[in-house]
């Protein structure tokens, strides 16, 4: 998740290199028990390079804290802050969490310990244990000082490379031997090793995160589950578009492939025994904190025009039980896809949604229109009237009143 070094930054630094034919290099699994935090509570950098990095990110945090993309909700913020404190290990008091209103599965942490979680990620989480896994993974980057280690790796490798390149050039110039091919090969090796290092840090954060959530009493299997969900979602999205899913792995990946991450996390989660209490999932707590936003976040997803992924997400969330909100958005996905037979599927969904007490008012409106389309005018009018009763000030209320008067 976290873009410690973006692929573009690494490739851009050297000019694009192509190397499709190389066999994959397997990154070894890191045992959670081997992961210990490298910093203590209240950590402040003491070395020049890390101080510089922190200094720059202080301004970035100022920028993010004042961003109009943030979800403004004090209760949600304090809930996430509390969660970070529970799984943050020695950094418990040093982490800050911001929620960005962006419908994508992503989260990142800055070197100074502030985290940004995207709304699309919150929307996909089934319970607190899954979210705790993500937060703990990010905390793992902070606890293991990944930013500065990544930067030093980049700096040292590029230093060596440029010195070697210069030496080869000078040596070649003096002796008349062309060493350009050797230099290019060395560059390629260095680039690949930078990506491999980045993947190793991600694997470390996974292992560290797993250990942290185990210690805080969460069910450790929640972490591999999150990856399982992501893999299935990508497949479902591709299937509906009649495309092949992306393999999600290459030598130029900054993150390990989801499938290998999931396998490693699964193996590791067996090594992590839960804390003293029962292994918590915390679903009710999570849904309560998210409830003011869940409808809006689902709405964002549905409007991404990716029905395969959206259906997978809704169905996955419904594994914990269907409700009016999920049924309504299931119906919305079909309505927005609008292919042959989709209107009937949507109508079924709206009809199912209104059976739940938490059905959003829009479910009644759309149910009403769907009934009217199939000739059941009186029932449709009753449903529309119900919509107006539930949402008398809706922006489209005058239009619905007009429809009722016809």
């Amino acid at each position, binding site marked *: 998740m976290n873009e410690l070094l973006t692929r573009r930054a690494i490739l851009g*630094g050297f000019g694009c290199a192509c190397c499709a034919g190389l066999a994959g290099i397997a990154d070894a699994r890191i045992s959670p028990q081997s992961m210990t935090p490298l910093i203590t509570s209240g950590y402040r950098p003491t070395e*020049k*390079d890390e*101080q*510089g*990095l*922190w*200094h*720059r990110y202080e*301004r970035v945090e*100022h920028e993010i804290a*004042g961003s*109009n993309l943030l979800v403004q909700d004090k209760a949600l913020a304090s809930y996430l802050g509390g969660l970070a404190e529970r799984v943050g290990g020695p950094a418990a008091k040093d982490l800050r969490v911001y929620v960005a209103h962006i419908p994508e599965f992503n989260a990142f942490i800055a070197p100074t310990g502030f985290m940004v979680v995207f709304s699309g990620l919150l929307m996909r989480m089934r319970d607190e244990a899954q979210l705790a896994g993500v937060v703990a993974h990010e905390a793992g980057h902070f606890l293991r000082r990944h930013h500065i280690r990544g*930067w030093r790796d*980049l*700096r040292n490798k*590029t*230093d060596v*490379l*440029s*010195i070697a390149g*210069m030496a080869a*050039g*000078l040596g*070649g*110039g*003096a002796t008349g031997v062309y060493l350009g091919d050797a230099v290019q090969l060395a560059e390629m090796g260095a680039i690949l090793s930078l990506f491999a290092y980045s993947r190793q840090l991600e694997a470390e954060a996974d292992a560290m995160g797993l250990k942290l959530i185990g210690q805080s009493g969460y069910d450790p299997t929640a972490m591999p589950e999150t990856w399982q969900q992501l893999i299935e979602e990508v497949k479902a999205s591709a299937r509906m578009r009649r495309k092949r899913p992306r393999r999600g792995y290459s030598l130029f990946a900054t993150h390990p492939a989801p499938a290998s991450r999931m396998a490693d996390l699964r193996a590791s989660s067996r090594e992590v025994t839960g804390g003293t209490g029962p292994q918590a999932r915390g679903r009710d707590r999570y849904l309560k904190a998210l409830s003011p936003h869940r409808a809006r976040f689902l709405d964002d997803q549905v409007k991404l025009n990716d029905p395969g992924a959206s259906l997978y997400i809704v169905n996955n969330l419904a594994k914990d039980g269907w409700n009016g909100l999920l049924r309504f958005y299931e119906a919305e996905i079909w309505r927005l896809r609008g292919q042959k037979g989709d209107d009937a599927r949507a109508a079924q969904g709206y009809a199912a949604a209104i059976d739940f007490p938490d059905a959003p008012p829009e479910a009644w409106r759309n149910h009403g229109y769907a009934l009217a389309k199939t000739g059941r005018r009186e029932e449709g009018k009753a449903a529309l009237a119900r919509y107006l009763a539930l949402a008398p000030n809706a922006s489209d209320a005058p239009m619905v009143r007009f429809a009722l008067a016809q």
Partner: protein
Amino acid sequence: MGRRSVILVAVSSLALSACVQTRQYTDVDFQPPQGDYSLIVMRPDVQVGSLTTAGLVEPRADWTEQARANVLRALREQQAGRGGRTLVMERRDEVRGIDAKLVADLERLHNAVGNSIILHKYLGLGLPTKRRGIDWTLGEDAVRFGRASGMDYALFLYAQDNVASTGRVAMQVLGIAGCFIGFCAPQGGASQTAFASLVDLKTGDVVWFNVLQTGSQLPGVAFGDIRTPQGSAQMVERLLGRMRAGRNVRARQQ
């Protein structure tokens, strides 16, 4: 051509690649501020980094703080010399009576407007309807901000100075020394990038815009080090010292 003249040509072309460049654009009716005026500097962004051997920029906190203090002092002195009163805004919430959100909105708007000025005025994608001077505005928000703060002008300032590390200087030396044995690989060294954008808070228009760039491929050559008071004063002078009046104003003066 003898060997000596070849070297001469090589060295002089290298010298050409070490240079200071500024390019300013002004509103056609722009009159450089003079006399009794007030200027607010919007969260100036001054950064100093060290160039690693390979040429990556490593930010340095201590140098940055030092340079920032020096640049702001130099700016205050320079403006005072023209009669201006300078207020530096460090945080968005520190100007009394002004919502931090308004400041944030203004900054983001300027960011977008500044980028399009750079795109259409500096990067060659000229717009046929905006040929003369600069014709961009931050609009009503900036006017509201001016009324609330009581300021005449807002200045947006960014400066980045990259200092060549010892390793980088060594690479530069080798790169040029190589020319003598047929492997010429001049390396970029110390460099500065800065821009300043002046907004008239009475109208909301961006009335003056300047970009400064210095760079050198010669080892040991830099064009002022903004960590020092002299270097900062030099940079501020290059960036804001020779403000040109707008085209219409100059025409009237002639």
